[in-house]
């Protein structure tokens, strides 16, 4: 191929690209969300067909980044609906006033405990707990009982076994810090982390590293049998095992869990408000809610939504999770992270 052929090929490719993905419906709606958003293609297609609305998905980074982008573009929003504001960010979103209120169709069918925004600007869509996962085989092999609660983690027997994420850069990392604050008190948590640090806790930047590189229960066989991950991770380990397994390889410590509730809202200044409302209705509908566990590995907000078998068996919804009011998290978040950094990293 000489350079002229190359340039011609480039021109053709450019043209082909600009022609692709023509919309099929006359109505459309844009969903702005984070990188972890996922939906089965068949479920989305069914909605588009039934409603006559094309859904365009825009992604802009992790949950915090996407919310900040939405605040920055307030008034001229990137899309119509924002999905992915969780309870740790809710107060920031409400204070910035980026959403308009909307009472979704089927709102009453959602678990009552999830209704944390009485103004209905943010509608709960799913929830997922951040918990410490254990590598079951590691503990069995050594004849040690896995820890039962946060206090156990300070025991010298569990020295050097836990890996956590940096709360400044990671959402599960922040959730775990909040769990320790919720379980202790305003000052107790600082003392707790000093002792956890002295018991050789390992801090890494994000979940990918903590779980995939350091955790002994994951595919890469790291060296630490305790990791801050999600309540649903043990189910995923079974569903995506290779070769297949029938007994759980990892488990949760229920008392270490912190509840994360994910919400969606209609952006102020949305160009397609009517379609946006239809999209919110769809997000809380049975069809979408049934798809939530296997697409995003979180629990559906709608009560009585059937869970996949692997969830029932290996990742039943935790019952002892802690939480904190969104306004308290928002007011203290920066200070807590700053203090934590001083205690653990400096």
């Amino acid at each position, binding site marked *: *191929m*000489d*350079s002229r052929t*190359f*340039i011609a090929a*480039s021109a053709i*490719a*450019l043209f082909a*690209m600009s022609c692709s993905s023509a919309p099929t419906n006359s109505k459309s709606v*844009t969903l702005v969300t984070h*990188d*972890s958003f*996922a939906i*089965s*293609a068949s479920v989305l297609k069914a909605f588009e067909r039934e409603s006559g609305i094309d859904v365009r998905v*825009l*992604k*802009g*980074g992790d949950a*915090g*980044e996407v919310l*900040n*982008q939405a*605040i*920055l*573009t307030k008034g*001229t929003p*990137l*899309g119509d609906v924002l999905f992915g504001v969780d309870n740790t960010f809710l107060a920031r979103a409400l204070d910035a006033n980026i959403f308009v209120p909307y009472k979704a169709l089927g709102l009453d069918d959602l678990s009552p405990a999830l209704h944390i925004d009485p103004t209905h600007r943010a509608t709960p869509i799913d929830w997922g707990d951040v918990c410490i996962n254990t590598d079951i085989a590691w503990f069995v092999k050594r004849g040690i009982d896995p820890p039962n609660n946060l206090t156990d983690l300070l025991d010298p027997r569990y020295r050097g076994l836990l890996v956590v994420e*940096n709360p*400044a*850069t990671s959402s599960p990392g922040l959730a775990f810090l909040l769990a320790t604050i919720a379980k202790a008190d305003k000052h107790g948590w600082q003392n707790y982390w000093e002792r956890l640090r002295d018991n050789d806790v390992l*801090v*890494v*930047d*994000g*979940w*990918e*590293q903590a779980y*995939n*590189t*350091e955790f002994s229960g*994951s*595919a*890469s066989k790291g060296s630490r049998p305790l990791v801050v*991950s*999600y309540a649903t*991770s043990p189910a*995923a*380990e079974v*569903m*995506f*095992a*290779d070769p297949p397994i029938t007994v759980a390889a990892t488990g949760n410590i229920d008392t270490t869990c912190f509840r994360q509730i994910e919400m969606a809202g209609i952006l102020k200044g949305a160009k397609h408000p009517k379609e946006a409302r239809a999209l919110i209705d769809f997000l809380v509908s049975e069809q979408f809610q049934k798809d939530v566990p296997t*697409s*995003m*590995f979180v629990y559906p907000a709608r009560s009585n939504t059937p869970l996949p078998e692997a969830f029932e068996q290996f990742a039943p919804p935790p019952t002892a999770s802690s939480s904190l009011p969104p306004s308290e998290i928002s007011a203290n978040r*920066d200070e807590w992270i700053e203090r934590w950094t001083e205690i653990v*990293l*400096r």
Partner: protein
Amino acid sequence: MDGDRVAMNFSTRVGRQVLIAIPVLFLVIFFVWPVLSILRLGLAPEGALDLAPLLDVLNDATLWSVAWFTLWQAVLSTVITLVIALPGAYVLSRYRFRGRGLARALVTVPFVLPTVVVGAAFTSLGVSRSLTAILLAHVFFNYAIVVRTVGSLWSHIDDREQQAARVLGAGRVRTFVSITLPTLRPAIGAATAIVFLFCFTSFGVILILGGPGYATIETEIYRQTAQHLNLETAAVLSLFQLGAVIAALAVSNRMSGDRIALSTLRPADQNTLPVIGRRRIMLGVNLFVIALLIGLPMTQLVVRSFDGGLDGYRGLTRTTFGFAEPPISAVWTSLQYALIATVLAVFVGGSAAFALVRRRERAKGRLLNLLVMLPLGISAVTVGFGFLVTFDAAPFELRSSPAIIPIAHALIAIPFVVWLMVPVLTAINPRQREAAAVLGANPSRVWWEIDFPIGLRAALVAAGFAAAISLGEFGATLFIVRPDTVTLPVVIFRLLGRPGQEMYSQAMAASTLLMFLTAGSVLAIERLRSPHATVF
């Protein structure tokens, strides 16, 4: 000089202005404007400049310790990279041995690998969470920059001058210092500047391989912008970073010097040396270093991808949970973006390169040079958030269009195109042009027969690099709001974001695929021959 005058006469005033206008317009619209917009939001939210936050940030002792660490780790990383990679550049550009093209393509591969993946490979080799890990990773990622930038000029250098010096009694070292080094100076200056900028604004390597205990100005800008939306502090930090980057570029400019070494350039394919005698040792040592530093971590990934036999690869062809299409389809998307970004980068960067060597006015040339390099020195998150607040109205309603991704990739690739082409173009001996003129070629014919083919050849090397940058780019893409189109690095990132053996094998398989795709693209583009390439 007569040769210069001949060349100058060729391009009309209008032609020169167009060559300059292309890169200036592109960079002002897609870089300067968004960056200024976001800085203005931070520093003058009400319209009036508020200097209080500036003073607050500058009075913070943490900033100074972060800045100091940023600087010295970057200097140290750059020096180590140069020491290790310069001999490699020589061997890979001049020695004639089987598999040379392959070796050159392979050392380019690290450049495109996502940091998360490299972090996993380094960790499994026992190198992680330390300064050593940061330094080794910087060599791993930047080795190719030196090999490409310096090697591209080295491959054309005529040895007869050195041989003359040796005959006249100069020793090896003296010949190298007084003949070879000055000729290579523009390329070494360019490589130093680029490597320094990459290490100075290093992000993933610091967070993942250094660990949470290390912070640079870049990681702080990311935290303040993306996590805290504290635009004031972020703006001050960005200005601080900008100042440091401009100072570094000025130093490198000085290092490269204004002197154009008068060396006759020869076609690279007629300029290779057979590997005999002491050259065997030189080749062996360099190939060993490459195998150890670059080959070993890469092999780790390939081995890992076969942990479950071929299941990782098979999985990529099926639609897994959370993906609208089989992950393998990302290959096509990645190639499309890479193609557009490469064409864009070579067009804009090539114009800038030809304009730069044509510039009589040095000051304007330096400004253009600086403008072209700046995207490497500004935080990706600043540019990404800048896009959001800038391109929100017609005719530039681009902030959520797919076009923004190849544009962002091109911004990063343009400096490479320019800095690969300029040293080669400036090193063209005016006597080559004079000879052509004496033989009866008119000025435009001289440019067409001498400057253009040499420039095109360098542009092809640059295109290989630009394609690689686009294929592997993830950092900048991360901060751009984008339609749900999935590129290969995004696939890897998503697969790694899921628990489960199957997901992990697939992520490693996708990484291996990305490595081969990159090596393949680089090899293919370098094989492209311009019809004039061998006419010297």
